[in-house]
């Protein structure tokens, strides 16, 4: 057996990270269900300014008044009264790794976080349930004036900036889950990159749902000032639990003139998590926003990263992969809203379904009447690994301008007998052959990832394929 395979076997034993810490280690844990009192408690626990409490309460009302979305996936199994909306693992935010409690370190260890941190640590913000437990910023980032904090600290240290931008890209009224997030948000990242500063190393955060029935509602706000650039990476894993969990994040990006934001997500929620995320960016003059979005795991994912191209020369890109296995539905896509002339957008979506899993591409391309000379390119490729799996494409186009170049291409293919036979005739086992075909299919995505993540994703795919046969 190869050393790679041996390593894989070892990982396989922990695969899906089916372990969890003792809940009793939590300093504070709210009772189940969502009430005005719980929202007030969260705000009080965090010592928030009055305006944030008001925003939360207003959002709670919107959440309660909005019906469940009836399009997309079936969300009827979510029981909002059976979820803990807030938990706190320890007091305050850790600055030094030494202060992080041992049992939390152990959990991170098994997820391989310290290693990644050593390798290119530009500032780690590791979300442990609702509270950030470890956060450090490398000195040179501080020297450059880059703000990289967890959202709670961001609110404390830069209340004016947060108040100015919070909820401006995704207001509570946008959708039921954005309202829910606004009411009970905790953690997430707050990043401000000053004008002209290019952050060379990706900023990373790790997220992990830990306690049973606990919702995770992180809130992220990234502001790239004119001429700056930043790459933010989040990777997610979660342990297996018997009952359902809810993850509902809100991510707001603001790319000012001439700036570039790349936001990379690799997500591997356990198969009982409802993952309902709202991600949206505003790209101003000549700015570029790229969403690199990998959706593995979860029970249901509904996620459509959006870029609003606000001013001339703005560029938006979504590059996403989705993988749906047994009992999973990945309803993912992209939204490109062209509000200005000479703007361009590209969407490349690749999905794989197997063992009865279902993937959907749901995308919107919108071009405003005065947005001329717009270029749009959408491509969705779906690969089915067997006959019982499913893939659908729902491309919506609202184009109110004639001076637009739109390319749209969608393909659905089944894994080919000829490809399998070809690889197996060269000595590869059926599992390895499938894994190779799948890796190749995802290659346009994988090659955009930093090496560590690419390796990890290849491994995850290999592990998934090992479980797929026999």
């Amino acid at each position, binding site marked *: 057996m190869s050393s790679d395979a041996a390593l894989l076997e070892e990982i396989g034993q922990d695969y899906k990270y089916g372990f969890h810490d003792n809940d009793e280690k939590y300093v504070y844990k709210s009772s189940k269900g969502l009430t005005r009192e719980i929202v007030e408690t969260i705000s009080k626990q965090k010592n928030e300014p009055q305006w944030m409490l008001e925003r939360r309460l207003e959002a709670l009302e919107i959440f309660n008044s909005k019906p469940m979305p009836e399009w997309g996936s079936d969300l009827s199994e979510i029981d909002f009264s059976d979820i803990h909306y807030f938990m706190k693992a320890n007091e305050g935010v850790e600055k030094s790794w030494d202060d992080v409690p041992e049992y939390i370190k152990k959990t991170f260890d098994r997820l391989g976080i310290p290693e990644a941190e050593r390798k290119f640590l530009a500032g780690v913000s590791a979300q442990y349930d609702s509270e950030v437990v470890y956060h450090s910023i490398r000195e040179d980032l501080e020297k450059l004036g880059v703000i990289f904090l967890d959202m709670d600290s961001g609110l404390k240290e830069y209340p004016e900036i947060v108040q100015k931008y919070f909820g401006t890209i995704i207001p509570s009224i946008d959708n039921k889950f954005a309202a829910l997030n606004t009411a009970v948000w905790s953690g997430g990242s707050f990043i401000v990159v000053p004008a002209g500063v290019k952050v060379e190393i990706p900023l990373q955060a790790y997220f992990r749902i830990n306690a049973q029935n606990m919702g995770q509602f992180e809130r992220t706000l990234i502001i790239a000032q004119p001429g700056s650039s930043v790459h933010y990476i989040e990777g997610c894993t979660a342990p297996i639990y018997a009952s359902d969990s809810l993850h509902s994040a809100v991510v707001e990006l603001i790319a000012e003139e001439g700036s570039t934001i790349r936001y990379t997500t690799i997500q591997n929620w356990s198969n009982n998590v409802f993952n309902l995320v709202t991600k949206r960016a505003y790209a101003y003059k000549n700015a570029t926003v790229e969403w690199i979005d990998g959706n593995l795991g979860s029970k249901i994912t509904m996620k459509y990263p959006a870029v609003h191209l606000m001013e001339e020369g703005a560029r938006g890109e979504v590059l996403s992969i989705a993988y749906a296995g047994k009992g999973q539905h990945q309803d993912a896509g992209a939204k490109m809203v062209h509000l200005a002339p000479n703007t361009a957008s590209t969407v490349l979506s690749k999905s794989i379904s197997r063992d009865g899993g279902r993937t959907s591409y749901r995308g919107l391309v919108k071009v405003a009447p005065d947005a001329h000379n717009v270029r749009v390119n959408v491509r969705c490729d779906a690969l089915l690994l067997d006959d019982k799996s499913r893939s659908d494409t729902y491309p919506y186009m609202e184009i109110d301008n004639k001076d637009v170049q739109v390319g749209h291409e969608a393909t659905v293919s089944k894994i080919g007998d*000829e490809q399998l*036979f070809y690889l197996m*005739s*060269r000595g*590869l086992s059926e599992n*390895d052959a499938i894994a190779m*075909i799948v*890796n190749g299919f995802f290659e346009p995505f994988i090659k955009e990832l930093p090496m560590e993540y690419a390796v990890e994703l290849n491994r995850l795919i290999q592990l998934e394929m090992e479980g797929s046969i026999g």
Partner: protein
Amino acid sequence: MSETPLLVIKNLHASVDGKPILRGLDLTVNRGEIHALMGPNGSGKSTLSNVICGHPNYEVTEGEIHFMGQNITEMEPDERAKLGIFLAFQYPTSIPGVTLANFLLASVKAIRGADNVKLLPFRKELVAQMQELGINQDFAKRYVNEGFSGGEKKRCEILQMAMLKPALAILDETDSGLDIDALRIVSEGVNRLTTPEMGVLVITHYQRLLNHIKPHKVHVLVHGRIVQSGGPEIALQLEENGYDELLKAHGLEPAGV
């Protein structure tokens, strides 16, 4: 043990989608021998190569295939490959997103055992073999067969043969789609790679490949059965007379042109 034939096929019947293609085929290939299998279109040439390698769409309904004394009739394709059987495909499929180098590394590891493959010597060997076959090194980074011309695909098949060093190499219409120069390079490659320990089965419609790769024995396949076996002279006769006479002799309609 050296007397054990490399490949023994006994009374082989095989069908696709319930339709019989091979109808009682016998063939023995010894080490050090090059066999040519000729026959008109639809006679079952490609079916035979697929069945020897274990293609799942082909069903063996009767008979047996033995390789180095072992009955392989029911084996998976990867097990057969590990025993040393190699097929140079007539129409190699593309594997998007997988580079030729990674693909070759994975298959060389699978065949030789991962512990026996070190990255640097592998690279060296790959580069050397690519040079021998006149394949630009950039191809190592290209996706397997994707956007390759017919000739490039065939060269890459021979490259795989060079890297995997099989005991039995089956060349399925490797000459089809090749111009005269490519045919020469590919044939030279095969001749260079053929050792006295190996057996080679060349499947071809035309005689021209056999000007370059000299067979010890030539067989003619008609309607799923070998109807004639002999020396290289048979190929020349076929070249002269075509397949029509043979087909008529077996009560079959000549193939349209």
